[in-house]
């Protein structure tokens, strides 16, 4: 590897992560600080919904609603064509995205392809599948971007944040897939992404695209607490809260 490239890689995967972690933590702390300075928690008086005893029926409804929302089915409440298209784009993009994020844990040693050997070959699971999923994510988020520009309603409430995020995300996935499209060097490669975490890759990907991938991904993480990407952290809580309310309202509170 030539020295300049090595220096660049050291910066992106050695130094920058510290900035990324620090910015992320600062953002989250600032958010929490702001939230908690809006109100003294003691003011919260339990409503009758939170006083309702939990019945088997309300637990069933809560779990059902939670799964329903996790599958993005909330947007499917009525078979409207527009809702369906939106569901298809965002659900396929998100599910592929989750699988790819999960995939990133393998080279770190969290799981191994042999666990899933009964499903498909290692080659398919670690090379082909992520590659295809990458295109699904790219396609999905690109279509969401198109929708944001073309659909009058969505455009009317969109701002810099919305477009910037989509651009970053598209960059990450484009670079990720380009690493695989451009020629490989058939040598193993160890990528240190923090003092204790090393990604063990079987082959060396295109380093330029790897650099782009690494920078864009870290920009996304840094930006997360300051943008609507915060829904990544927050949505499980809002979905759970709504599900519990829904379960009680439709189950426990009725007589």
């Amino acid at each position, binding site marked *: 590897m030539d020295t300049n490239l090595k220096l660049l890689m050291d910066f992106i995967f050695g130094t920058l992560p510290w900035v990324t972690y620090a910015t992320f933590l600062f953002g989250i702390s600032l958010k929490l600080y702001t939230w908690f300075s809006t*109100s003294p928690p003691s003011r919260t008086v339990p409503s009758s919904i939170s006083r309702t005893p939990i019945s088997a029926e309300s637990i069933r409804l809560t779990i059902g609603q939670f799964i329903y929302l996790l599958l*993005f089915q909330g947007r499917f409440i009525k078979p409207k064509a527009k809702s369906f298209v939106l569901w298809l784009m965002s659900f396929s993009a998100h599910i592929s995205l989750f699988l790819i994020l999960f995939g990133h844990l393998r080279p770190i040693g969290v799981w191994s392809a042999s666990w899933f050997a009964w499903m498909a070959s290692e080659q398919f699971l670690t090379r082909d599948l992520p590659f295809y999923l990458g295109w699904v994510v790219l396609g999905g988020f690109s279509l969401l971007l198109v929708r944001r520009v073309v*659909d009058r309603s969505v455009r009317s*409430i969109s701002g810099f944040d919305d477009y910037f995020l989509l651009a970053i995300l598209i960059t990450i996935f484009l670079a990720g897939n380009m690493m695989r499209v451009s020629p490989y060097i058939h040598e193993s490669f160890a990528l240190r992404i923090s003092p204790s975490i090393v990604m063990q890759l079987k082959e060396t990907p295109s380093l330029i695209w790897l650099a782009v991938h690494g920078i864009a991904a870290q920009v996304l993480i840094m930006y997360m607490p300051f943008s*609507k990407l915060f829904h990544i952290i927050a949505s499980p809580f809002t979905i759970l809260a*709504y599900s519990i309310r829904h379960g009680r309202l439709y189950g426990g509170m009725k007589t």
Partner: protein
Amino acid sequence: MKLETLKEVSPFTMLQLETCARCAHCAEYCPVYDVLKKPQVMPGGRVSVMLKIIKSGVNPWFALYRSKTNKLNEIENYVENVYNCALCGRCMAVCPFGIQTDILWELFRKIVYRFNKHPPVLKEVDKFILSTYNAYGVGNDARSMWVDYLGLDNAKINERSDVVYFVGCTSSFKAVAQDIAYATSLILNHARLSWTLLGEDEWCCGAPLLMIGDEDGARKMAEHNVKAIENLDAKLVVSACPGCARTIKQKYPSLIGRALRFNVMHVMELLDLYIRKERMPLKGIEKESALVTYHDPCELARLSGVIDEPRHVIHAVTFSFREMPEGKKDVRCCGGGGILQAVNDELRLSIAEKRVRQAQALEAEILTSACPACKITLMDGLKKIGVKMQVLDVTELFARKLGLM
């Protein structure tokens, strides 16, 4: 503006506001956006503005969060939109994150109210509810006049009973809705329940005050009504108004800071229960043969989960029934909610028009609902488009078929 003015805003409120991905899925479903087509009234747009206003009032020294605009100005420019909302809760039901917008919108109104920036007409309404204890600004001693006027015999007023029938302002004072009060009374008699009216001691349930943003006013109403009901040792409060029933059941405990000593039901729940337990004599009834449809009141279906009950009741007395599109949990609001009639009646009528056209397309002969505000709004909608269709509350349909009225 100082921080303490926003103390209603809890960390969970902030979490919900910051979760909105501005996907605009709600735009497809909001009846107000459907008419006005302004980003400021789209639920996702409302969230953005609310967040901006709140943040501009929090920690003004935090440059990162400081918004250049002055919060009061922002609120002023935005008030009209805050009240251009039917509080129907549909945006919550379709939001992929389940953001509980109904609670957020009420909170938004509370903030506006606190800055005394609510529209003049609502200042009037607020004032007269607080002084007359009803939403129509007439003497509250007229609350039970419908009893004599419609000839209801042996009605108990403010006497010890198992059941209190909480009539609500609309059914007490509005002529077309008084039939609902009458029908409900006849049904309670037919079921041989020991029940009473509260008469003058029934005050506005407080829902309109909450819609204006006056929480303290609503608390005053709640405290009075709870005392009046508990004084009679009643075990159950029944109402034919979904707004009253929901306010008492879901909001009173947090308003007065303790649990209620009685249960609350909408009359549809009670009727359904009595029919299923065969405690409601149905012998010899002649079922309705005209084509009936049913409009779910938002407060009853989506916001209280009472969806199957009214349908069971209708099926007990009719032969032919057809479902409306956009019904049940996903019901399209008729426009009667959110105190729109006072704030923007034109908007209310445009929303109503869309809903009644759907009933018209079904070729329904009788359009039923289970809410006095819906009944009035649907009738106004039909008048607007010049279509003749009978609008009945399910209680009226039921009482008629039982030959009670």
